[in-house]
């Protein structure tokens, strides 16, 4: 297993397809820029935040792995690292949003700010230059973390120097702190400020948990897709999937917990400054979307993931992870779209799908490309001997 397998032509083929589809999606989607620019940026924001969450969430999981260890992390480590390597592309993909700030955010329209004392109060924070500066900072943090995680991982493969594991651990503690701060304020800037009057102290945690859950589901799915390939075929056992399934269960529960906490407190408080966010999401068909989320984002995966056989079957678990990914997509949509459209019917737009596929294609293309650059399993991870039970190779 130790030769960096130039993984099958299938991956390369898949990568090209992804790029093609992505570019095509973006090009066709860009026509919306002419036809309906406001809708273009709304769809773009939604699609962008979904794909970003995988990359950023993966960085968090790698760092958690470096801190706590475990076989589950060893087998998905390279998948996660490859996903974090997409962050520079995502930083470039962020640029189009900058041209649509005034379409997206009320606070970026000077005439609206002039008419609203609350927005004037917030303009110290919510103004275009500072918004840009913060965005640069967030990407600097994420890309910086991803860079070192990758660099030292590469060095570890080459030299096996034991100090590297230590260094990765040392980076991961403060790295997670920085990551948490960056995601929190990015969530405030990019999503919460869509309704600049509304605020919630748990909002950053909602995004953090959502991102990690998205990334975990994505990693499980990719692991299953690669499970038949070298080197995974020699290494993977049902217990790896069992552990990953348990983690998925934990984050599904955590998502439900933080979502419910916010809902209960705002619903019971019923304050004019808080409740509009839920009023929008409980009318015009959005409430049915909410029920779908409760059922398929929480209840169904929760029940299924309690069953040991589900977690130990790679196929079933991967199907479940795919379902969770779809639900994450709907959840992000439920966060973003009701800010612009009072009804679901009015919200759904072709550009949502086009840009989702467009950004997604480019992202997946980059991801698959990165995945092929390094061996699919770390070569000299000090955990390797301990955590991987290898039946054939001694």
């Amino acid at each position, binding site marked *: 297993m130790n030769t960096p397998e130039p993984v099958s032509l299938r991956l390369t083929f898949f990568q090209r397809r992804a790029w093609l589809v992505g570019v095509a999606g973006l090009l066709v989607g860009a026509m919306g820029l002419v036809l309906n620019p406001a809708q273009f940026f709304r769809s773009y924001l939604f699609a962008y935040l979904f794909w970003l969450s995988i990359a950023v969430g993966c960085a968090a999981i790698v760092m958690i792995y470096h801190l706590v260890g*475990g076989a589950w992390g060893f087998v998905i480590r390279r998948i996660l690292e490859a996903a974090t390597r997409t962050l520079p592309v995502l930083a470039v993909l962020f640029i189009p949003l900058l041209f649509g700030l005034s379409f997206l955010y009320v606070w970026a329209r000077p005439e609206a700010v002039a008419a609203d004392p609350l927005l004037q109060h917030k303009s110290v924070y919510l103004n275009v230059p500072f918004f840009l500066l913060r965005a640069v900072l967030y990407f600097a943090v994420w890309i910086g973390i991803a860079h070192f995680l990758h660099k030292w991982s590469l060095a570890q493969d080459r030299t096996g120097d034991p100090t590297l594991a230590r260094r990765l651990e040392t980076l991961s503690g403060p790295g997670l702190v920085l990551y948490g701060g960056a995601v929190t304020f990015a969530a*405030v800037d990019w999503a919460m400020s869509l309704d600049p009057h509304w605020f919630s*102290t748990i909002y950053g*945690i909602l995004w953090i948990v959502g991102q990690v859950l998205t990334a975990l589901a994505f990693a499980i799915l990719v692991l299953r897709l690669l499970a038949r390939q070298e080197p995974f075929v020699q290494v993977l*056992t049902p217990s790896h999937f069992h552990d990953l399934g348990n983690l998925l269960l934990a984050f599904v529960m955590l998502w439900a917990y933080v979502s419910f906490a916010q809902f*209960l407190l705002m619903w019971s408080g019923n304050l004019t400054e808080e409740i509009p966010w839920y009023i929008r999401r409980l009318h015009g068909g959005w409430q049915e979307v909410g029920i779908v989320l409760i059922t398929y984002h929480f209840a169904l995966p929760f029940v299924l993931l309690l069953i040991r056989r589900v977690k130990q079957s790679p196929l079933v678990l991967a199907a479940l992870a795919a379902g969770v990914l779809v639900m994450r997509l709907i959840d992000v949509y439920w966060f973003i779209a009701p800010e612009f459209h009072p009804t679901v019917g009015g919200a759904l737009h072709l550009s949502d799908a086009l840009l989702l596929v467009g950004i997604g294609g480019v992202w997946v293309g980059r991801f698959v490309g990165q995945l092929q650059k390094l061996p699919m399993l770390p070569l000299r991870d000090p955990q390797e001997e301990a955590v991987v039970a290898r039946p054939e190779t001694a």
Partner: protein
Amino acid sequence: MAYEGQERATGIATVPPVVGPGYTPRSVNEKISAIVLTHPTSRGWLVGFGISFLLLLLLLYSVVYLFAVGLGIWGINQPVGWGFDIINFVWWIGIGHAGTLISAILLLLRQEWRTSINRFAEAMTLFAVACAGIFPLIHLGRPWFFYWLLPYPNVMGMWPQFRSPLVWDVFAVSTYATVSLLFWYVGLIPDLAALRDRSRSRVGRVLYGMLAMGWRGSARHWARYQTAYLLLAGLATPLVVSVHTVVSFDFAVGIIPGWHATIFPPYFVAGAIFAGFAMVLLIAIPLRKFYQLEDFITLRHLDNMAKVLLATGLVVAYGYMMETFMAWYSGSPYEHYAVITNRMTGPYAPLYWGLILCNVVTPQLLWSRRARVNVPLLFGVALVVSVGMWLERFMIIVMSLHRDFLPSAWGMYYPTVWDYTTYIGTIGLFLSLLFLFVRFLPMISIFEMQELVAEEEHGAPRRAATETAPAAEAVRVSG
């Protein structure tokens, strides 16, 4: 399976072991049970227990006086209707979180280093919950009607207000106390049998024998025991989160600035674990010293607990940060006044800054590995954190109540001597129970330590704690 030997692999050179060298299952049993059975009662224990018992008497006196005279002996009044009573309730219940977290969640996560600290952490949990439970009851104006909180068909045709978080509290705390007790007791049974078999006095044999409920250590016993223990762990896990979540609802469901924040549930849970681990350290460090248990509660344990302390401390700091940021960002003058102006510059500002010093600044020392294994320093940090968590509850409760929307309704809260005696009294109750516990029950789980030692000895792969079958049968049965 997958985790086996992970601890050996991750750091033979850098990380101290979970158990000191040179132990056999038999010597583990002898060492731990000897503390209870053969060691003479030490003078230190007598003095410690004596002082604690005096404080317990102080509690009894304070409570009797309270019942005789009424709530007026406390400092609570309008506008601050919740004072030391609720602060102490939340403080104690928070401390009571670490035990079950260590026992249940770390068991499910297969963190085998938990083995030597889970027993006394669980005991600590029970005692802390007992202390916590006193406060809401004595805080009732007419405590003899406490059972009105429970839903039961009655001649008055009255039901509790189910929409009130205070009623949820009753369910959450009583469920938590029950499951924690069961969990602790079930975990004790094999050890009680060991004490029964080793005890040389007839009284000991009879008492431990009764408590051991006929445990013989057969393979069937062990198989059923493992299932029961695992199920209880699964049952206890959500409770760790739910209790302090409900406690946070006591505040956050109210729409008072400073209380009504959506981050409260996770922030309270993190704070509880933070306070709980600080208390576990405060207990573990003297215990390992006085009873020479350094080989069982090693630097590895202290290091890990310090890491948990740091991580939860950071979550708590995140909570403070978000509360403060959103208070400004909201643009609400009341939020801004309550959370920023009044806390940072109001009459209680020194307590606020003390809290920041205790809970945010001090734990940052624990980033350094050297600080984490410096035992006196760690003890100091844990002490500071315990104080800080008390101050946090003071900040949330008193500082939010004493100045509400109308300046005409503002006032100050001054605790009376009875507030202090009741608080100190519950510390006496806690310590008395703890002293009795270390004297009469094995403070470290004998059979789990034996299992650990046996596996080190034979180099046998460590089976995941969650899947153990009675493999090390022979070595576990004592006597």
